[in-house]
């Protein structure tokens, strides 16, 4: 709970902290008036480092992110995916963990298919994706839910604690993309819809401290399994 002290809602231009010993972190700037917020969000101060946690805004792709994307196009050596980022991403045939005949790319993944992939490289040419890891691959079935990318950390929780809470209470498998997409797969549609409701509840209440307890209470009141 110590990390969550001093959280307040701030608006652009608002002074968060005055004094020379504060340092401007992400979403802030140091001016003659003090550390000011450069975005609407929650301010947080830890060990004199002040930052703003955004509650809205677009996805900022980072190397290592697991994302969920949609195949937009296929070219001679790979697939072009829309990953809800400023640029489309490219998945090369060389980054698939099995042999693929260059003439049959569409048989492996076709336009409209959804894929869980990892960003392994980013440069001026664009974003490169890979499927070379066990939890990555084409999505076969389930429900895909869209949330604001800034809510993803709360849906995952500390070391996956929130995802596990959802899994245990709904019996569904949950895969979260850093770009704001959540893939839910369960034994039946009712279970999947229940998990979807839970995910949306967490996204709507992402700014609350003590969110885990609130979610546990929500599951108790709404028929969670546990």
């Amino acid at each position, binding site marked *: 709970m110590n990390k969550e002290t001093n959280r307040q*809602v701030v*608006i*652009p*231009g*608002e002074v968060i902290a005055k004094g020379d010993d504060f340092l401007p972190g992400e*979403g802030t*700037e140091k001016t003659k008036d003090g550390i*000011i917020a*450069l*975005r*609407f*969000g*929650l301010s947080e101060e830890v060990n004199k480092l002040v930052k703003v946690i*955004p*509650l*809205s*805004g*677009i996805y900022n792709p980072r190397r290592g992110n697991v994302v969920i994307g949609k195949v937009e196009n296929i070219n001679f050596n790979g697939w072009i995916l829309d990953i809800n980022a*400023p640029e489309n991403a490219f998945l090369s045939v060389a980054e698939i963990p099995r042999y693929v005949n260059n003439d049959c790319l569409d048989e492996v993944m076709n336009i409209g298919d959804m894929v869980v992939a990892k960003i392994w490289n980013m440069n001026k040419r664009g974003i490169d994706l890979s499927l070379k890891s066990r939890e990555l691959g084409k999505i076969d079935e389930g429900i895909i839910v869209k949330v604001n990318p*800034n809510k993803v950390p709360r849906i995952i929780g500390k070391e996956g604690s929130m995802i596990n809470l959802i899994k245990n209470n709904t019996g569904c498998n949950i895969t979260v993309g850093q770009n704001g997409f959540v893939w839910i797969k369960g034994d039946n549609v009712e279970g999947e819809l229940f998990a979807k409701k839970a995910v949306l509840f967490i996204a709507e209440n992402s*700014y*609350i401290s003590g969110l885990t307890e609130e979610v546990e209470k929500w599951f108790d009141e709404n028929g969670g399994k546990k």
Partner: protein
Amino acid sequence: MTKEFKRSDGRKLDEMRPMSAKVGVIPSADGSAMWKQGDTIAIAAVHGPKKMHPQHQQDPSTGKLRCNYTLMSFSVSDRARPGKNRRSQEIDQIINWAIEPALLIKNYPNMVIDVSINITQADAGTRCAGINAAVLALAHAGIPMKTMVSSVALGKLDKTLVVDINKAEEDFEEGEGSTDIPVTMTHDGKITHMQLDGKITPKQMTDVMKMAKKACDEIYEIQKKALKDSIGGKE
């Protein structure tokens, strides 16, 4: 002894009409807000940042703001024909110039932030209400900004300066008639937009700018409250 000018709705010279604001009114937008200034109501929605289309308008050195202002047909007594006209095209650009200086969008190359502003009920000060709503929607959408921006329409009725004119005052015809002065300022006091229609001396402009700052500070408080109230309370 000068007689105090009497405004048609009984307000003091530096008194604003009742104001209210709310964010998040358009669920499918990335950010949105409603701004009410007396009987003038504006709704703004933000979509973006996203890839700029058409491609030839992309700017690799920075992101761009694109404003689209619409006076709805039934917002005025004499029906406004739906569709873009010269007045709304000019206002698109005015609103753009009023807001862009406060935005930090160099980090969004080739991208655009689309802001749509619709006036659902018009009683003067429509572009100002539109700007106030647009700024709220942009902040709500998480667009990085150095400062908030606020807008108000001042006026001169005959020889008297007043704040936040309504439609009746816009049509005032006695003496020197009505001078219409919409002004937009950043919270740290810089003017990003000013227009004038009428008759005024340079000396009076000093008073205009003082009155504008005071009015914009009041607007800022309402904008701040709307954003803060959207978190933690039931919307």
